[in-house]
């Protein structure tokens, strides 16, 4: 096995090296070529380091528990870093900086919506997740319900979330890497897919976690450095910076006012709900709660993760405002050199241009490498969550009814990872020219409307039965998908119809109540003997959720 890793590692390295030699960057500009080298060398260093970790992790990944949850041996701080890493994707770094740069205060409100879910996850979910779950969140929803049916549903909605999120990440990755490294789009997609398969199949959760931790550290260091260098240009005075930014920005004095992004209250609230509860329903985030030893460490994970996320969002806020002056007033970063025209590489490049302006090609290279590493780490976490839904839920529990051997289950999860990697590569290439922004919204919408309601009710509401959970979960899934498909972002922008069927772009405000209501009504109307037994079984589940008694065994294998 170790030999294969070495070969694959070499393959990956030659892949990025080969692409450098392959020819001039797509953009064709001389200045970009120089930056490519810095970025590629730093990225190759990152890959070499993480391959070393994967090699080390492969030796320690023997049981299913090692593979899915790193044997429960991750500490609270490490897990906090990894959760923060999962949460701070390339879209966060690039998209939110661009949002502050373009929309000012709106971007900051958006950040709060991204953040506010974390305290709630801690207060209401973290401890119960850890006490009841083993490898996937379906362990909790299926705890006292029909294993086969409920797990199938949870796996279907998990995989749907994972697939949409994967496509969004892959397409973003391809375009970003094309721009930053001068790699061909397809080469970039294949590189991300292959590296991800290597990390996950050989290193399992141990490697995935460490890739995430290293990347989170790099992202924090890089972001902080850019922010400090940028702020130094204003004598570290926030007032001076804002005053001057307001003078030059096209929004003028409206820069610090809520604007177009949140103009409509329904959209604002629906978006806030989707982000808040979607976070609490993302399978790759929920899975992280099973990698720590007990509820104590699970709580600490959230404390560290939320601290890091809050800090980093504020760093991004400062970067975005600083970029209004440093990037927005520099003709070097605009196509044709016209200030106020189109930014070179598009709106998402604000953070990258800023790093070049304050720290030269070296810092740009570093941040570009971090962005690539970020995509790789997030994609790996997603693939592992998807693979565990296939192997742990569908294969071991639904098809084999709990009779599968550990070796078989691990083998299935490795095949599932490779399968998901191939699907991600193919879909990434197919969707190259599509606008995929709605897919992240869709992933959060499904997570909020299909995963979250059933998960929270299974932990808190005694009266939940299998029928209720199934009806609610599927109606949440289908209504979230329907509302997104019928909204402007798909019905008009992708399919090309003249007017949307559904007037809002955010599904959560509508799909979540549907899911909750259907779950509640169907459970209440369920008079079956099985339903009664399930309600009865809540008592024991409740004691375990509260005390963690019986949960320790789940982590020790």
């Amino acid at each position, binding site marked *: 096995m170790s030999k294969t890793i070495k070969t694959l590692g070499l393959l990956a390295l030659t892949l990025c090296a080969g692409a450098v030699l392959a020819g001039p960057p797509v953009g064709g500009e001389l200045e970009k070529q120089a930056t490519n080298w810095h970025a590629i060398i730093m990225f190759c260093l990152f890959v070499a380091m993480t391959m070393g970790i994967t090699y080390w992790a492969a030796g320690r990944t023997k049981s299913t528990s090692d593979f899915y949850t790193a044997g429960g041996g991750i500490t609270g701080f490490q897990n906090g870093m990894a959760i923060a890493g999962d949460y701070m994707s390339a879209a966060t770094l690039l998209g939110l900086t661009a949002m502050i740069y373009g929309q000012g205060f709106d971007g900051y409100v958006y950040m709060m919506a991204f*953040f*506010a879910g974390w*305290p709630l996850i801690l207060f209401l979910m973290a401890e119960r997740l850890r006490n009841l779950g083993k490898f996937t969140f379906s362990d909790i929803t299926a705890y006292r319900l029909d294993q086969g049916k409920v797990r199938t549903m949870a796996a279907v909605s998990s995989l749907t979330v994972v697939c949409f999120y994967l496509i969004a990440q892959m397409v973003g990755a391809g375009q970003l890497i094309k721009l930053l490294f001068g790699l061909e789009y397809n080469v970039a997609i294949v590189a991300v897919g292959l590296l991800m398969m290597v990390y996950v199949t050989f290193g399992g959760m141990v490697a995935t976690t460490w890739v995430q931790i290293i990347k989170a550290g790099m992202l924090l260091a890089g972001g902080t450095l850019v922010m400090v260098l940028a702020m130094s240009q204003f004598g570290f005075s926030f*007032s001076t910076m804002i005053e001057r930014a307001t003078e030059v920005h096209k929004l003028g004095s409206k820069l*610090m006012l809520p604007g177009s992004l949140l103009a409509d209250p329904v959209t604002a609230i629906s978006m806030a709900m989707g982000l808040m509860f979607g976070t609490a329903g993302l399978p790759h985030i929920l899975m992280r709660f099973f990698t720590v030893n007990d509820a*104590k460490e699970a709580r600490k994970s959230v404390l560290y993760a939320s601290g890091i996320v809050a800090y980093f969002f504020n760093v991004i806020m400062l970067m975005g405002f600083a970029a209004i002056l440093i990037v927005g007033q520099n003709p070097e970063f605009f196509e044709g050199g016209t200030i106020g025209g189109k930014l070179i590489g598009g709106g998402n490049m604000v953070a990258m241009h800023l790093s070049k302006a304050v720290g030269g090609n070296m810092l740009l290279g570093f941040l570009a490498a971090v962005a690539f590493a970020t995509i790789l780490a997030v994609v790996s976490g997603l693939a592992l969550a998807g693979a565990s839904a296939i192997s742990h839920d569908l294969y071991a529990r639904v098809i084999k009814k709990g009779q599968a051997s550990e070796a078989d289950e691990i083998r299935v999860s490795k095949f599932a990872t490779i399968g998901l990697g191939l699907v991600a590569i193919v879909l990434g290439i197919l969707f190259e020219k599509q606008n995929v922004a709605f897919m992240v919204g869709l992933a959060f919408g499904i997570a909020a409307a299909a995963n979250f309601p059933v998960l929270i009710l299974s932990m808190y509401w005694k009266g939940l039965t299998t029928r209720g959970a199934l009806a609610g979960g599927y109606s949440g899934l289908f209504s979230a998908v329907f509302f997104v498909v019928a909204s402007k972002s798909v019905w008009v922008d992708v399919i090309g119809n003249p007017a949307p069927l559904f007037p809002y772009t955010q599904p959560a405000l509508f799909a979540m109540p549907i899911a909750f209501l259907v779950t509640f009504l169907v459970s209440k109307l369920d008079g079956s003997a099985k339903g009664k037994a399930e309600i009865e079984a809540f008592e024991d589940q409740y004691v375990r959720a509260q005390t963690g008694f019986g949960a320790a065994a789940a982590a020790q294998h």
Partner: protein
Amino acid sequence: MKNPIYEKIRNNPKFPQLVQKRSRFAWTLSAITLVAFYGFVMLVAFQPATVGLALSEGSQYTFGLVLELAMFIVFWLMTWLYVRRANGEFDALTQEIVREATRGGQK
């Protein structure tokens, strides 16, 4: 198929105490988070002008900016507060309850 240890834990008068104390604490903090956050979103949606008001004449710090920064800090302090109490007081009580239920029996 009720587990006898769970039965014992449930019958320990300290168990409802633990649950009640922790739930009250967790729900209070959650309520503060939800009210503050959705209050803020409503403010942004319905009173955008208020959000953009300067704290004092000529200051660049607006009401909305400072409020949001304060929310980041307070939310995080609340997670710290919860973790401190849950990992200290509540966990000690939990261990006590489990120990009493398993005394002389299985682990």
